[in-house]
């Protein structure tokens, strides 16, 4: 059957425009997280064993503030020096007493609490007892970062294995999220933060997180430092629930006999000393 070529072209164009939304929809719908196959589960067994609970080397965190000095920009250094002076004078500025997340990379830098790793197909998940049981999802399924990720406290993390080292790349962190060296000394990263981590065992039960922190609005150069975690297998080290703000409430009964939380007056993250009349 002969058709008029102009009509044919118009028909093709009409079809194209009419179906364009459909094609776009199909493209989005095409991105699915496939059900893991037995081989995907099997591949996990070849990864290094990071099971157990990992407790931070807090003394080393403190030491590295000196041994791995942060290359703060001069104007930032002035603010940091003022915070350090206040902390030394016994007037620490509580950066996290509002219980907003410590975020990336700060919680890896300053935590005093434990964490654990979960390996599942296409993903490594870091579960914290630290920072109120918060967590990180690190996608290891080969995806890239979103073109323009919604900023979050922990950002968007993708990872891949280089031998026994997990290399993690994180972007999309909220500019308000602190780059902190302690609970009282830190500065908002102010945007465009990029963190590259290399997590690996250095001994059977000692894990290092080698961090490279690129924060162009507050640092003059990438800050390289390491954080160390120790593996515990005794069951008393199992991660427990830890809600940040719970300590701000006393357990009481209301007039109906219901178990309720009642706010405790706090100032600068501490209970205000109560008078004996207070209950």
């Amino acid at each position, binding site marked *: 059957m002969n058709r008029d070529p102009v009509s044919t072209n118009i028909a093709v164009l009409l079809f194209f425009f009419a179906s364009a939304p459909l094609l776009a929809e199909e493209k989005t719908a095409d991105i699915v997280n496939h059900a893991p196959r037995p081989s995907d589960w099997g591949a996990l067994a070849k990864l290094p064993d990071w099971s157990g609970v990992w407790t931070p080397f807090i003394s080393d965190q403190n030491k590295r503030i000196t041994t791995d000095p942060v290359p703060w920009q001069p104007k930032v250094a002035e603010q940091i020096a003022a915070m350090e002076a206040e902390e030394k004078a*016994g007037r620490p500025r509580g950066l*996290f007493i509002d219980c907003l997340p410590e975020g990336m990379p700060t919680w890896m830098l300053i935590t005093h*609490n434990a964490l654990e790793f979960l390996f599942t197909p296409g993903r490594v998940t870091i579960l914290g007892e630290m*920072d109120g049981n918060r967590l990180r999802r690190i996608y290891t399924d080969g995806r890239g970062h979103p073109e323009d990720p919604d900023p979050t406290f922990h950002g968007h993390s993708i990872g891949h294995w280089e031998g026994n080292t997990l290399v993690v790349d994180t972007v999309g962190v909220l500019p308000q999220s602190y780059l902190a060296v302690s*609970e009282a000394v830190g500065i908002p990263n102010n945007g465009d933060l990029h963190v590259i981590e290399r997590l690996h065992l250095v001994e059977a*039960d000692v894990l290092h997180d080698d961090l490279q922190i690129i924060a162009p609005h507050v640092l003059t150069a990438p800050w390289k430092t390491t954080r160390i975690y120790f593996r515990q297998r005794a069951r008393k080290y199992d*991660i*427990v629930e830890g809600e*940040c703000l719970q300590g701000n409430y006393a357990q009481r009964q209301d007039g109906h006999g219901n178990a309720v939380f009642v706010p405790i007056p706090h100032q600068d993250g501490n209970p205000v000393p109560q008078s004996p009349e207070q209950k």
Partner: protein
Amino acid sequence: MRRLPRGIARLLLLGALTAVSLPALAHHSFAMFDFTKTVTITGTVKEFQWTNPHVVVWVNVEGKDPKTPDVWWLEMTSPGNLTRTGWNRKALSAGDKVVVELNPLRNGGLGGALIKVTISATGQVFSTNLRDMEKPGLK
């Protein structure tokens, strides 16, 4: 309240404690406490609050007015970390007579970072030291 005199042994103990009991909480600095000073108080537990991010114990201590005790608050690390160093949520109970060693607030307020508490009736001792966990494979 009674403050112990400082002898040489006490200074040695103080040195050891200040070396190991610096900031212990996740969400605020401990710089408001004076780690160069150790104070000992004797009193009665008013309330033991087993919560994150920090466990707190309130202790009634006899003050100037015997009818109105001073109320001290003492901070520790988290329930998770304390569990690993031998504590539990029933470690202290309201009414327990206790002797508490603490690093006091620098501003002179009735509060501090708890170092060690001894329950008078049983002699049982609980202490907090996160640095004890800085090695792998602990029991």
